[in-house]
């Protein structure tokens, strides 16, 4: 359909390529080249000084075997946490985006602005704020203990729950914004027509709004899930010794253990799993375009 519209444009042959060149050139130099050397590293053996190793490319697939066998748990854990966080973000984000798009009236833009605000408080500062809120002596824990949801010795900080909560929180705007954008584009006349003809309750939503907002849900899910799966800040600040995610492992491999080939292999496995996930998800949802 875009093609139909494009026919009206005169320079459609050259223009898209010219427009694409800057981004592609930039990413080629500052993304593909480093990634390529990383790929080679992941298939290399090292020799010489541990600290400044010489790498020999040797199709060393065992690096991948090591990465998988040693850190399978962390991979699973990362994807479970990221999945839960994405789901939670969707459950919180969609209704809010919906209300802002359709029910906020003249407060729409104000609300939208407010939703983006947390973005501007640095990630680390936001996460530290959660530490204050969820502290063992804080009011949240005290309240839950009084109500009886938490036992007297229970705590929230340093649990898997806190990590998932942190992930949900930190990436919620990534979920909300694309959904909002896709909802906002829906022609209001359509919604009204559907509400008149269908019952105004669930069916208009299910038949009209939901399908039209799916691209937003798709983009939001990806933008939430991907960084959540690779994150390590939340696990570090809000988690415990038993909630380590794969991001931490990669970090430690690079910085402390200094096994660069395995670290590189871990990174590639993470990227590959995410990428496969993206493709499968795109197929399932039937979205023509990626993100």
């Amino acid at each position, binding site marked *: 359909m*875009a*093609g139909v*519209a*494009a026919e*009206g444009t*005169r320079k459609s042959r050259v*223009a*898209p390529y010219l*427009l*694409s060149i800057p*981004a592609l050139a*930039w*990413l080629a130099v*500052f*993304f593909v080249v*480093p*990634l390529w*050397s*990383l790929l080679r590293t992941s298939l290399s053996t090292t020799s010489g000084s541990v600290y400044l190793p010489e790498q020999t490319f040797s199709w060393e697939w065992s690096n991948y075997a090591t990465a998988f066998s040693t850190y399978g748990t962390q991979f699973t854990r990362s994807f479970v946490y990221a999945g839960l966080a994405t789901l939670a973000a969707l459950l*919180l984000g969609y*209704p*809010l985006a919906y209300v802002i798009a359709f029910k906020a009236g003249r407060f729409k*833009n104000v609300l939208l*602005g*407010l939703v*983006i*605000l*947390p*973005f*501007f*408080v640095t*990630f*680390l500062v936001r996460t530290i*704020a959660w530490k204050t*809120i969820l*502290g063992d*002596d804080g009011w949240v824990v005290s309240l839950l203990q009084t109500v009886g949801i938490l036992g007297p010795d229970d705590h929230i900080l340093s649990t898997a729950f806190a990590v998932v909560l942190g992930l949900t*929180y930190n990436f*919620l705007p990534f979920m909300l*914004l694309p959904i909002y*954008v*896709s909802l906002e584009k829906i*022609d209001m006349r359509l919604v009204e*027509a*559907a509400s008149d*003809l269908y019952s105004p*309750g669930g069916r208009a939503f299910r038949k009209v709004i939901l399908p039209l907002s799916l691209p937003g849900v798709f*983009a939001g899910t*990806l933008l939430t899930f*991907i960084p959540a799966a690779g994150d390590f800040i939340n696990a570090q600040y809000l988690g415990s010794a038993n909630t380590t995610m794969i991001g931490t492992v*990669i*970090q430690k491999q690079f910085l402390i253990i200094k096994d660069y080939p395995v670290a*590189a292999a871990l*990174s590639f496995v993470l*990227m590959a799993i*995410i*990428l496969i996930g*993206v493709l499968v998800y795109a197929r399932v949802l039937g979205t023509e*375009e990626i*993100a």
Partner: protein
Amino acid sequence: MTAATRAAVPEMHPATAETRVAVIEKRFVPPRWLRRTGSVLLRMWAYFALVFLFLPIAVVVLFSFNDPVGKFNLVWKGFSLEAWQNAFAIPGLTSAFFTSLQVGAVSTVFAVIIGSLIALALVRYRYKGGAATNLFLVLPLTAPEVVLGSSLLVLFLDMSWPTGFSTIVVAHISFQISFVAVTVKARLRGFDWTLEDAAMDLGSPPLRTFLRVTFPLILPGIIAAAMLAFALSLDDFIVTFFVSGSEVTYPLFVNSAVKTSLPPQINVLATIILLVSLALIGLNELVRHWRTRGLPVG
């Protein structure tokens, strides 16, 4: 309706088809009170989400007025304006803060230009390699930050490019581009491009068409992308860490501060960014208002 206009609003077709079906089938209509309750519940849930979003922010702002006794601004001790009066009393923090703002501004300008161009290409034209480009653009989003950071560091070293301000900017642009492209694309999709064609048909030169028609159309999307890109830059810790040389950004400072002391000035500066952002959002609203009114063709 011309062929081009119909193509620009393809969403009409499935819905109208569905509508016809719906008229034929008579379905159960829930009573008014049930609908009302549903609507109220929906709103309450949305408010809950808003509270969730704002709770930590409120804490950050509140604790900028704290009067901590020791080194860690984590437990409420009492109200004080001292940190605000001495907002810039910590030289390391202040310079890190301004470094971050500069990095954010410069990288955002570059990333928004580069990213919007490719988004425009992808939405506006169907061309060979377009789908592959789409996929390629998502790749950087899948790369863990530690991977980006460490591999970029080696690249800069190979290029004998001393790490510091410029390398941070380059690294930030590298991850911002994809986000900008995705955001702008989302905004542009389903736009009514006939305006542009119409302007061209009427003999407007491409440059003028772009300035007076296309640009105002895509501006809100670009502004949204710019805010996102700026926020991402301001937020980034891991990639920055690797390529920063001896430059210290705000997140780098916070990360080290966490280990030894958390002065309330951190919260004060965070609150200042928050207020400035609020002002910018307001400004954006004004611009949008002005744009819609002043749009020559609309």
